[in-house]
């Protein structure tokens, strides 16, 4: 979707104003730590996945997306996931208490399982039997498409010419996975775009931006 989250190349957000790494706190408020723990540890609706998480975050109204801090985005996603999946009601979210007589589950991930599970989570490579359409060094064009659902094809590369730098093999396809329509793995490539191609004649002739793109985002050029 062409949402406010797709920020690459947009102007007007102000200075980066980085904090000094040596003095930056791990958390900027205690609740951020709790929100991280909740997000990582809670039970999600069946079939929920990281792409769905990202998509729900993108569905935040634009003004809210820009106004809320990072872990508050996570709060919004977790609540939306719970409500949408029927795991909690609005009244429960507001009150912080389970409705009288509601069922209590006993299948949450246990604390003593966390360390092992973080080691095994997040593997997105998948074996493919189809050969890659594109070769390293080949010129490709990012398609000019505007899906209304989740996509990882940023607007700033659509329609632009690039060169395949890396072939990563088969990876889960977020555009279907985010909508619970299966992993539908595709070949994933890193494609390099010159700054001139992306931003015009005033851009650096030397610099480039590399973007990870699934095969169906690309066409031969």
């Amino acid at each position, binding site marked *: 979707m062409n949402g406010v989250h797709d920020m690459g190349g947009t102007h007007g957000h102000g200075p980066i104003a980085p904090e000094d790494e040596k003095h930056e706190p791990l958390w900027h408020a205690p609740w951020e730590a709790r929100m991280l723990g909740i997000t990582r540890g809670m039970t999600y609706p069946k079939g929920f996945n990281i792409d769905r998480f990202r998509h729900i975050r993108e569905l935040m109204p634009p003004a809210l997306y820009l106004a809320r801090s990072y872990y508050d985005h996570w*709060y919004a996603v977790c609540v939306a996931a719970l409500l*949408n999946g029927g*795991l909690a009601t609005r009244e429960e979210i507001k009150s912080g208490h389970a409705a009288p007589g509601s069922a209590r589950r006993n299948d949450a991930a*246990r604390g003593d399982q966390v360390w092992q599970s973080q080691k095994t989570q*997040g593997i997105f490579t998948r074996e493919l039997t189809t050969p890659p359409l594109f070769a390293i060094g080949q010129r490709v064009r990012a398609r000019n498409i505007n899906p209304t659902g989740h996509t990882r094809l940023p607007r700033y590369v659509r329609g632009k010419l690039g060169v395949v730098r890396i072939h990563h093999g088969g990876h889960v396809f977020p555009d279907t996975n985010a909508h619970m329509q299966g992993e539908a793995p595709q070949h994933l490539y890193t494609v390099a775009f010159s700054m001139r191609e992306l931003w015009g004649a005033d851009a650096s002739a030397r*610099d480039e931006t590399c973007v990870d793109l699934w095969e169906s985002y690309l066409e031969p050029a």
Partner: protein
Amino acid sequence: MTRIAIPAYDGAVNAEVSVTESLSDHPHHHDHAHDHAGSEVPSDPALRTKALESLLIDKGLVDPAAIDAWVDAYESRIGPRRGAQIVARAWVDPQFKARLLQDATRAIEPFGFLGREGQHIVVLENTPTVHNLVVCTLCSCYPWGLLGLPPRWYKAAPYRARSVIDPRGVLAEFGVVLGDEVEVRVWDSTAEIRYLVLPERPAGTDGLSEAELAELVTRDAMIGVVKVEGPKGRKP
């Protein structure tokens, strides 16, 4: 190309998100002269998060020990010292460095650092003529398994927006000014590949041990926004 629109799903989520918006509404604090969008009261997310935690425990949807365990993992076990170990090893061991640049995931596996947000790693080598910079324009993808919690600026709009269109301006804001002879390569983490920059080893570090070298390596240098500085008090 797959086009997917599931109105029922998307509409439902929009409705739910608007619920969260209503939760943060504060009619008694309303001030129309004020920029409402930017006036987040710090205690509000704290209260909402606390209510969510209580509810999830109440319903058996989270083990409170799991919340603590995840927090502890990122507070005391998973942080930028991991990435620094990789960098220092690459600086002292040319064979390891070659393996790292060839297949970082396999080279890092023996360290035990692979995990969530860091199962598929690519390492990018900075040289006198190439400078690499990592960003995620679409969300905030970051090599958590090697660097721990991402810094706040990395997740915020200014860095996400500008890195791909004005990386030299971004670097200058971090105090790094690169000459025209240096090529800047920006890596936008749009997939599950996690990028780690291998910074240049600073001059004046010939006599340092691997552990001492690791002490010099900063998180920001492994994102690519700064260079690694030599040891203080030593002439390069």
